[in-house]
């Protein structure tokens, strides 16, 4: 005796949906198997009852309208779901022209900054940004050159510095024999002529 027909095979046999070979094999088994035949009969009865209950639907049901209403209800449900769920923004497509314009503007601004902003201010801005990034509470220390014009003196000479520019006093290769700084805002360098001994004192002023 062959193997029993599975439940799904019996259901498909009743509805006539089994393939030709499977159907012939099932019929051969059902002819010889009492239990499978009883279960197949049970499926047949259920199917008959479903048809009868479907036949009890009102005669004037407009199936097309019913389908349209159901579709509309599904769409309303989807729209309501969109309102409740977090929106995922769709990235706006960026054309190459606006991108090129923005890149050009950025290059122009960087060039203008490089040409016009004194290095000291750039460094100061960099320090301030680093301080903010590192979360330091206090403001960074202000460099002396960021407070205004500065006069400086060293063994090599004197100079006036402002906005990152330096005006250095120089007498060629001659080095000053003395330099001095006055707290009222000036610096002086003293040069002695090697041949005559004549002394020349050159001064620069912050104001």
């Amino acid at each position, binding site marked *: 005796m062959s193997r029993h027909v599975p439940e799904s095979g019996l259901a498909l046999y009743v509805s006539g949906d089994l393939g030709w070979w499977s159907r012939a094999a099932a019929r051969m088994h059902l002819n010889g198997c009492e239990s499978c035949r009883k279960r197949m009969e049970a499926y047949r009865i259920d199917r008959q009852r479903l048809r009868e209950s479907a036949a009890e639907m009102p005669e004037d049901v407009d199936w097309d309208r019913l389908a349209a209403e159901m579709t509309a209800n599904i769409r309303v449900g989807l729209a309501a779901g969109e309102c409740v769920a977090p929106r995922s923004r769709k990235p706006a497509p960026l054309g190459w022209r606006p991108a090129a314009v923005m890149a050009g503007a950025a290059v122009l601004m960087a060039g203008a900054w490089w040409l016009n902003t004194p290095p000291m201010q750039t460094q100061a801005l960099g320090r301030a940004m680093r301080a903010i990034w590192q979360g330091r509470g206090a403001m960074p220390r202000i460099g002396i050159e960021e407070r205004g014009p500065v006069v400086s003196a060293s063994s090599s000479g004197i100079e006036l510095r402002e906005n990152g520019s330096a005006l*250095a*006093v120089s007498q060629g290769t001659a080095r000053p024999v*003395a330099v*001095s*700084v006055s*707290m009222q*805002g000036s610096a002086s360098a003293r040069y002695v002529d090697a041949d005559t001994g004549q002394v020349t004192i050159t001064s620069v002023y912050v104001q």
Partner: protein
Amino acid sequence: MSSRLTISFLAIALAAGAQTLSRKIELPKDSPVTLVSADWGESSATPRGGAFLVDVHAGLSLRNSSQRRIRGVTLAVVAQEVTPGGKGSVSVPSLDVAPGDTFPVRIDLPLLRPLGAGAGPLVEVQLDGVLFDDLNFYGPDKLHSRRTMTVWELEARRDRRYFKTLLETAGREGLQKEMLASLARQADRPQPGVQMVRGRATNTDPEREVQFAFLHFPESPVQPTDGMARIAGNEARAPRLEVRNLSDRPIRHLEIGWIVEDQQGREFLAASVPADLNLAPGRSSQVFEDAALRFDQRTSIQGMTGFVSSVEFADGSYWIPSRSALEDPKLRRLAPPSPEEQRLAQIYRKKGLAALVEELKKF
């Protein structure tokens, strides 16, 4: 290759930008000096940002057209009066120019002049003052050159007198020994870099107040009695000094030398603190400068010393420290010699002892 092209382009642009300097030498009609010649050499004006960088390298020849001997001259070199970096000055002290004689003045100054600062020459040389051998002064004195040139002249007289006395008492050997010592001191004198800015810092490292110590000269008409400055690491600012007039004459100006000591005990003359005041005899007054000094980053300021370096009385007379006061070991090591001592030392170094003796005999 591209960097070469860029450099070439910049060089061409700079060469095109640099222009011949338009200049003017302005001497008053009654000036005691007249211009004989002017060589502007490599002077140029180059655009830099929103301004011209006016690089003045000039050699002037001036004639003493007065009837008195000239001891010093100060010229103001002005590209723009009110702009920082717009003006400078050149002084020539320790002169002895007879009436009718000529003397050279060398000008080497970089200046800034804003673009569109108006018509007229890019740079103007003006006479700020002439000091004569009788200590009379001529000139507008916009840069207070009268005071500085008078102090230099008094220092010159003091030092010439000292070296003449030395020649008389210790002979040529004594003078030679002193000149060698002077040259050695000049070579050894510490001169670390210092920066100065006017105005107050708004946020710096934690500060502490440090008291001044003072060098007292017995003959000084002014006694510094108290003083402090605010110190933060390598920066000192806002010096505040209390001074008392010990003389019987009112004082209108004084200058205090400011010596700084670092963490290794090294000392150097950092700056001078000038003060205009009206200090009656026996009264005290406060000297304050809202300015800051900054030294090398490795410098930590540990101590400060002040000394009175010059005083101007209301009657126009002056006081400067005597040669014996300058024998204080600290001052001897740190204070620069007078312009006259440096001139005499250079004559000795270049031309020898005989030339120095001849120079001392002149006046």
